[in-house]
């Protein structure tokens, strides 16, 4: 599994003290580079300045050109006999399988057998439940831990090397020990999603908390804000855009961990369906599962961005 380095991640959690120059920085100066392709892991869209509707529409339309061309090529190559359906079934067959998955008549199955026809709702809801519960746990642990790491030099010195080491462990490498700890269970699945979501959240939170300009904290103190209120009144709001970036990365990495989590003997879940399909050689089912992962993951990011937008709009200029 590939590692994804958070956009705001840094080698050390404590950067240099921010100079006054940063304070006068206008949000629009700090904006991200121009919107690139819609790559999920590079969180540019939330930081990008708004663009006119027509231009955005044209850009989106342009983004469809290559996928449509590839599907056409795939269909043509299949029809011409260049690709064996056993290696890659044609798009029409995959679309048909997709239809069966969503709307097919579900048949009674034996216990332990993973159904496919008409089972989309069952699998998607199982995967999403694992995803969201693991992610929620990641947020609950990751944000407070990240704040502690970012705000307390001592906590940073104590824990930063450990966090950096642990986050270098691929999620698949957590699988064996997780199985020993939790057995083949729902708990194992949730734990893996939690681990997947945790580190980007911790690191982005710590990093953005450590980068809150000193001058902003000084101003709060000179306005009479008590030191005990600084975290709530200054650090968290000032770090929120960075925390949201961490949440988006955590949500995405949590979703990627779901497929690994469903190696823990689950009979429901999109990943469980895909592993079952491999056993019976149904490549069309596997591709339907991959497409399902793409759609749900993207939808989760869109929802999180929409929910967080009003809290971080100030940082978008």
């Amino acid at each position, binding site marked *: 599994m590939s590692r994804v380095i958070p956009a705001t991640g840094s080698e050390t959690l404590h950067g240099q003290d921010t100079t*006054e120059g940063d304070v*006068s920085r206008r*949000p629009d100066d700090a904006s991200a580079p121009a919107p690139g392709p819609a790559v999920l892991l590079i969180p540019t869209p939330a930081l990008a300045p708004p663009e006119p509707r027509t231009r955005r529409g044209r850009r989106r339309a342009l983004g469809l050109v290559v996928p449509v061309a590839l599907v056409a090529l795939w269909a043509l190559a299949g029809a011409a006999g260049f690709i064996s359906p056993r290696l890659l079934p044609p798009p029409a067959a995959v679309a048909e399988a997709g239809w069966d998955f969503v709307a097919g008549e579900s048949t009674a199955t034996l216990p332990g057998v993973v159904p496919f026809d008409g089972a989309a709702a069952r699998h998607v809801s199982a995967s999403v439940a694992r995803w969201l519960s693991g992610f929620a746990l990641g947020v609950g642990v990751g944000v407070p831990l990240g704040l502690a790491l970012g705000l307390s030099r001592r906590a940073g010195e104590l824990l930063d090397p450990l966090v950096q080491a642990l986050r270098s462990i691929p999620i698949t490498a957590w699988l064996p020990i997780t199985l020993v700890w939790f057995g083949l269970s729902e708990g194992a699945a949730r734990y893996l999603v939690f681990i997947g979501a945790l580190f980007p959240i911790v690191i982005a939170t710590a990093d953005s908390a450590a980068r809150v300009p000193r001058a902003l904290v*000084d*101003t*709060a103190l000179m*306005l009479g804000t*008590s030191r005990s209120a600084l975290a709530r009144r*200054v650090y968290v709001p000032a770090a929120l855009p960075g925390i949201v970036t961490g949440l988006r990365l955590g949500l995405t990495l949590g979703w990627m961990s779901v497929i690994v989590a469903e190696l823990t003997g689950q009979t429901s879940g999109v990943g469980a369906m895909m592993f079952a399909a491999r056993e019976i050689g149904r490549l069309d089912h596997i591709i339907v599962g991959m497409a399902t992962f793409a759609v749900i993951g993207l939808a989760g990011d869109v929802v999180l961005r929409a929910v967080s937008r009003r809290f971080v709009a100030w*940082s978008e200029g």
Partner: protein
Amino acid sequence: MTAAAGAHAIPDVLAVRDLKKSYGDVHVLDGIDLDVAPDEVLAVLGPSGCGKSTLLRLLAGLEPVDAGEIRIGDEEVGGPSPDRPMVAQGATLFPWLSLRGNLEWGPRATGHADPAAAADELLEATALTGFADVRPGQLSGGMRQRAAIAQVLANRPPVLLLDEPFGALDAQTRLRMHEWLRGLLAERPTTVVLVTHDVDEALLLGDRLALLSARPSHVVERIDVPFGAERARSTLSDPGFVALKARVLDLVLSA
């Protein structure tokens, strides 16, 4: 009791005695003495890098002193306090709050004033009433500096510390800011220590000047500014102003 003794009974609001500060081997301040009378504007001038900003950070309580003493009234200065806030050139407004939210912050934290009333008053004093619901990022540089000064004035501090507050603004905006600040201080008398490298600014705003030497710095000269409250743009071309400016510049450059 004689009139002179009566005048003496009013203590200096701000008294600095033999203040010293070093960063490692760098001796920045080497025995600074200053006295600032109530509602007086003291402009501190000095060559670049002489420690003017360090002096102000010490007065604000943002950094500990190595030796010496800073007194406000009868109290020795400890940490940061709403009684002597500092405003520097990078306006430190809270970017996630509206302008009104920024102005209400101080009174909410201290309870020194009614937040909404203080904000209304300061929005008017800064001519920003129409921008109450706007976030700082959408204001111009001059507006933000006015807002930053208004933000700390909401607590009605007896002492205001300004560190080159208009240094990042263009020359025309800066002139307007000088007139605005003079008007504001006329309405709300406040003791001000203004650190600047701009001699015009020091002479237009200051009642007195203190000139610092190069590092390690001490006060080399104190000058009473002989212009009254009616200073304006035209004062810049007054022969007395021009002569004094030439003298002060000589002192700064040879300090």
